[in-house]
């Protein structure tokens, strides 16, 4: 019998505000850790090469592709997954409401990428131009919308978020 036993690594993470201490294989991706071990199924696999962005999460407030992030390289970081965008009762954030209200998505599989890229953009630039929106969304592929409805959704989100702050 050949065994695939590996050494394990101990990591400590805060995911959507909740503390986790985990013993993991050093080779596991953050995507697989989130999906398979911790049941955060909202983070999606699309390519495993970092090109499509369906696996996007935030690590310490910055977008990151979880499929090409080794979980063992992370410790004492704050991770937000798409599930962390709404509150515990399931109330959507203004950002999510905008994407839903304006038919930003079709199949919605790329939602983690589009939502986090938009969040990151609007935190820096609350009132972006179309061109700035496109640049911000470059990191995630959408195969359904031709990006037209996503740009509309980001603009709506910009308005929605500033309205909710004022």
């Amino acid at each position, binding site marked *: 019998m050949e065994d695939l036993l590996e050494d394990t690594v101990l990591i400590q993470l805060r995911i959507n505000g909740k503390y986790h201490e985990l013993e993991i294989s050093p080779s596991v991706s953050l995507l697989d850790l989130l999906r398979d071990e911790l049941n955060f199924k909202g983070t999606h696999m699309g390519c495993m090469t970092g090109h499509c962005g369906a696996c996007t999460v935030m690590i310490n407030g910055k977008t990151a592709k979880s499929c090409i992030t080794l979980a063992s390289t992370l410790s004492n970081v704050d991770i937000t997954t798409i599930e962390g965008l709404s509150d515990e009762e399931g109330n959507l954030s203004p950002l999510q409401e905008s994407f839903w209200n304006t038919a930003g998505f079709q199949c919605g599989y790329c939602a983690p990428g589009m939502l986090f890229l938009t969040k990151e953009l609007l935190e820096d630039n609350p009132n972006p131009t179309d061109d700035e929106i496109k640049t911000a*969304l470059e990191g995630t592929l959408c195969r359904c919308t031709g990006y037209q409805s996503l740009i509309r959704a980001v603009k709506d989100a910009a308005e929605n978020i500033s309205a909710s702050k004022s």
Partner: protein
Amino acid sequence: MGNNDENSDLYVGKSVRTLEGKGPVSGRAKYTSDFNFDGQLYAHILRSPHASADIKSIDTSAAEKISGVVKVLTGEEAAKYIDPIPHYIDPTGLGGKVATIRCLALDYVWCYGQPVAVVVAEEKRIAQYAVSKINVDYDIKDPVIDPALALREDAKPVVRDWDSNLITQLPFSNGDPEKAISSADEVIQTEVKVHRFSTQPIETRCYNAVWEAETESITLYGTVQNPHPLRNVLSKVLRMPENKIRIHAPTIGGAFGLKMHGHPEEGLMCILSKLTRRPVKWVESREECLLVGAREQVHNVELAVKKDGTITALRDNFVANTGAPSATPGWAMSFLTGLTMPGPYAVRNLDVLLSAVVTNKPGWNASRGYGKEVTAMALEISIDNAARQLGIDPLEMRCKNFIKSDQFPYDSPTGLIYDSGDYSGVLMKAAKAIDYEGWKVKQKEALKEGRYIGIGIGFELTPEGGAVPGTLVAGYDTSSVKVGPDGSVRVLTGVTSPGSGNPTGIAQIVADELGVKLDTIEVIQGDTTTCPYGFGNASGRSTIVGGGSAAKAAKKVREKIIKVAAALMEVDEKTVNLIQGNITSGDKSISLEEVCYAVYTRAYDVASVVEPPLESTATFKPGLIRHTPDENGRINPYPSYSNAGFIAITEVDIETGQTKLLKISVAHDCGKAINPILVEGQANGAISFGIGGSMSENIVFDENGRQLTNNFMDYVMPRAHDVPEILQSHHDSPNPVTYMGLKGAGEAGVGGSASAIVNSVNNALSPFGVLITDLPLTAPRVWAAIQLARKNQPQRKVA
């Protein structure tokens, strides 16, 4: 019905937000790979690294010794338990040859990536590692990759028991093309080479087969567009009756044809689950997803024309490289390419010959457009070449040759019956929206500054709602509308959604027909046990037949509610109004819930005027489809002929060959738009396919038939900056044979936009005399064409 007024009490025509949209934005939508079950096992597939080889032996012993490996299955063992996969569309129905398609290769492999063995293990990584320990002894053969070589008499047959590499050779002919061509003012030849590009939804395929010990049955959770037809296929593969198989297709992350069935992994996961008595899951990698091909065709178009631009005949001898045989419906796209000739043009003399060829490339599956996009590309690029050679404005040339709006229903020269249309109205609308004449002026101005702007036209006819006789590709579909004692509504449909929003469109229809509020409706799809027998998602059919059948069922349920409401209020039923859940008669009113509860609870007194429960199942079977062959043996498989016109504006950097798409205008005739924002989204998505397909997406192979394109760095799909502003106009000429005149949306956009972009680039480079018809228009290809033209015509003046 069908009021577009946003203030109307009706939902149809309004851009309401989707019922199913909260799941994806909150990360709670459950896609197939999100399901896991107790005792879950994982499969990994060993695929052939060779395009053509004999399998001399397979040694699985090292893989079996790895702890955590539960089962290793080879083709030889699999053949004991499962049968070959029946074809989605059997080539014999089109005069073709059939190959035996197995889930795992037996004796020899016929393409790169073909499944050879599979490992099932307790963990994904163990299965993956164990696959690397399987030793296959191959005797490598020279592959047949080029379809022209595949057709030579001395070519080795890809399928060993075939006498040639032709699946089928089919003529589409009418009139006297020979005479028209010999008497034409000019015959303009254009070779259009459409490359291999595919669907690539961001969610790849996934199947999770669960053995149900209690009932000795299998439940397959899968990325499946057509659950009921797949159940039929699997019953044959697995040698089990259909009532022992349940297919459940949950939320789908885009399909575009990829998730139509016949894939080996469907049956494999089921048999592995049956053998191990545990759930077995396989998630397709992107590399595996890119194996699935489509569209590669070479057209040799000859247009017989008069000097004034009238096309008098079309000849096109075309070859489709469909790759190795597959049970999926991909290969038959090439049939549709021929059948849809000559598209929107009133050309009666036709001589089209399809040669559908097998080679040692991986096989095709259905791809948005389903072959009709290639018809558009071959026609539109050829017509532009003709307009250029005749010195006629390409817009004028098209309008001159279009079928006129008073000629419908129109009998096409291939036997189709086009329901309705206003093609020149559509194209002129697209031209007006983008200011076609204005761009001509801007183009001249730019040229003075040494900038090369192009204006390109494309048009496409996309027959929708297809029905192929003798197959489970049906023209009709069925829905059930069920209202509970509390007045809440469930709609169960035989159609499915790939993520397009059709459940919401169907709910809007039901809300209006039944007279209830939209948010009281749940639409349930994709489950063979709960939903009515149906044919799923394909061919832009879901709202036509899903919506049409749900409307019929809702009307019947409404009648019952009105009758019982009248009895309860003691009024004449003709005086009862039911809208948005409010039931009134004069100044009397009653709640919907009270009426519904009475139907279930007072069946022997006041509600005895109707038959309980408040449920109805109805089928919508659109007209116009004709499966009884005419005197020429021709059928019309479509009830509906969506169409769209496109204008694309590009700018080409002649130093680098880089093309920038500046703007694109589309006018789209899909009949009534139930939810305009969702319909627009369909067209925008299809246009994005056309942009990628014409400019960057390309699946390439080395000379040994090994696929070189295996990730999203090599397969370049449009990102946000690659898609410019899309100007979209709707042009509604209703279909007389469908509910509310629906025609189907979703496919129109691919071929029309791709053609408009190619024509635009060629138009930009017309000062050099460049005509690129070998796609895609990648920068190196465009640059090379400019260099070649400059070398050949160094003295040519720029206009």
